[in-house]
């Protein structure tokens, strides 16, 4: 170990002074990848992926010692960790790129008018056609009903927590709202199955459990509620207190202050939160699978008979043995992702224009 020349205690000229020559680092890289390639191809131990991985590791070790030699141990640690952090970033990009590329290349295969104008009714294993119009209708209806249930409830709950809530009880509610955001979607589906489909619906369905799009909407509501409460609550907290105090000073009652001053001010943020939770609900598969039952034909009525949704359609086509099914699955996946991303991006843009900042 060659320690860098010390001029004064606490000052390390190695950090600001000498730099490792670029040529040395290039040399280390060449040697590292050369050795790695020689080992892999020489022994038949692996393929080019292993060459890259092993080369990278050898390079990191080699460059550590090279920098250690020229600049000292602290600089070597610094640069090696920096390189590791950079490679983590690159590593994470690979699957992302792969997902997007597959989605686009395979998803556009069946991206035609037929896909958006037919259902899977009377489509056999040998038919190349078939579309997802029934699934699109299902997704839109279920998400719309779920939003109609949760938006008023969620916003009111948030108003209560922020404007009226005091003490331990409110703290407990906030805590459990947070915990509820982590409930697995399949458990929400099971809950609606146990409560609505198996216990409530037999009363008005001649004793038979009834699957329906409405049940799926209920399950999605259970998932959406906590996220809407949380985001609305945060936005309401950002409304400046002087606005409220100004209204009170003018003699405006509390409820009117909330309706006419607080909520309009926070509205863009509230809508952003609602759109994000809708986007998340639209992509949920498990609850729809459990309580809507799935269907091949168009069913416009969400209160009666089975329905399907885009995500459930993807899941079912993915498990279908027909050789035309994968193309349908990918196109439906592309449609679903497009729907979700449009909602998400719109929500983020809206949030960017929001004047209330954290």
């Amino acid at each position, binding site marked *: 170990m060659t320690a860098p020349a010390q001029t004064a205690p606490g000052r*390390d000229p190695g*950090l600001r002074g000498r730099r490792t020559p670029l040529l040395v680092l290039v040399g280390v890289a060449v040697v590292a990848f050369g050795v790695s390639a020689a080992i892999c191809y020489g022994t038949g*131990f692996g393929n080019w992926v*292993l060459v890259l991985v092993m080369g990278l590791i050898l390079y990191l070790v080699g460059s550590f010692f090279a920098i250690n030699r020229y600049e000292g141990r*602290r*600089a070597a*640690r*610094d640069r090696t960790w*920096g390189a590791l*952090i950079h*490679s*983590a*970033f690159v*590593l*994470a990009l690979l*699957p992302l790129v*792969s*997902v997007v590329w*597959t*989605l686009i290349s395979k998803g556009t295969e069946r991206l035609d008018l037929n896909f958006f104008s037919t259902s899977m009714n009377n489509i056999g294993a040998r038919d190349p056609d078939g579309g997802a119009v029934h699934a699109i209708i299902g997704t839109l209806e279920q998400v719309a009903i779920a939003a109609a249930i949760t938006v008023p409830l969620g916003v009111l*709950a948030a108003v209560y927590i922020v404007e009226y809530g005091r003490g331990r009880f409110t703290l*407990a*509610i906030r805590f459990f709202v*947070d915990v*509820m955001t*982590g*409930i*697995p979607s*399949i*458990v*929400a589906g*099971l*809950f609606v*199955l*146990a409560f609505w489909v*198996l*216990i409530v619906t037999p009363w008005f369905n001649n004793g038979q459990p009834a699957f329906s799009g409405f049940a799926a909407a209920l399950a999605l509501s*259970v998932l959406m*509620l906590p996220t809407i*409460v949380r985001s609305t609550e*945060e936005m309401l907290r950002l409304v400046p207190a002087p606005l409220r105090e100004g209204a009170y000073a003018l003699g405006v009652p509390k409820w009117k202050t909330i309706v006419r001053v607080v909520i309009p001010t926070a509205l863009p943020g509230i809508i952003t*939160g609602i759109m*994000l939770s809708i*986007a*998340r609900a639209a*992509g949920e*598969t*498990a609850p729809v*699978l*459990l309580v809507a039952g799935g269907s091949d034909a168009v069913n416009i009525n969400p209160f009666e008979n089975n329905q399907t949704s885009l*995500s459930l359609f*993807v*899941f079912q086509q*993915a498990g279908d043995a027909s050789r035309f099914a994968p193309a349908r*699955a*990918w196109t439906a996946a592309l449609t*679903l*992702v497009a729907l979700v991303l449009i909602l*998400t991006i719109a929500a*983020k843009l809206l949030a960017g224009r929001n004047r209330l900042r954290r």
Partner: protein
Amino acid sequence: MVLVIIVAITAFLVAEAVPALQADDANFLTETEWFPNQTPPEFGIAALAWGTLVTSVIALVVAVPVALGIALYLSHYAPRRIATTFGFVIDLLAAVPSVVFGLWGFTVFIEPVRSFSVWLNKYFGWIPLFGGDGPFGRSFMLGGLVLAIMVLPIITALSREVFRQTPTANEEAALSLGATRWEMIRTAVLPYGRPGVIASVMLGLGRALGETIALALTLGFINEITVNIIQNGGNSIAANIANGFGEAGEIGRGALIASGLVLFAITLVVNMAARAIIYRRREFTESAA
């Protein structure tokens, strides 16, 4: 109201699960097989719980170091433009539905994982983890890696927020004492962010434990307790519910609901622990993904 929902979930799940549990001919907690529709019905969650645990552990082992690396990169290394762009991309990635990752996992990702498994088996087969003689592909490893990709954005987004909220004064103090960038991160950023990072990892764990559809598409559906992670097989509580629901009868349904109750209890505990850490330290008030 929210409390009512949580209590109602528990109550109704219990109500539906009890008849099935009473009909169960085996010990629900230790039995590995899942035959609720035969007479007498025999089923237990031991193998399912094992699969849930193994896939989640694989996911976290892979995802946590990478996610922390990305979070540090975005908060302390990347130029501002790249940081905002990729922060946005990571948020979008968190919004992609799980069924899409599942579809990608079992059509595209399975190929590299299979060849990697074959390679591991050839040279490291003497380790029980990588033993067996195939077929490979739809294994704990595939499921776990797909899960890793799915929890990555969550852990990254949350820990990035934590790292970013390190007081600038602390960072500048470290730098002014002559620390290198890495020393600054180690002495100022990481200790400050530790509770937040632990909480974000636990939230990621909660997501991994409850993930259904991606695992329903990538696991091989063999109920067994094995340490082999590359051979076809594996099942998890949530995936078993999704795949077994179609052919379940009265008792089968109750059995699935009972397993869901166990899953609910586990995720509730994990989430409460994570939230408790966050509440105690109040490191960040970001709403969770």
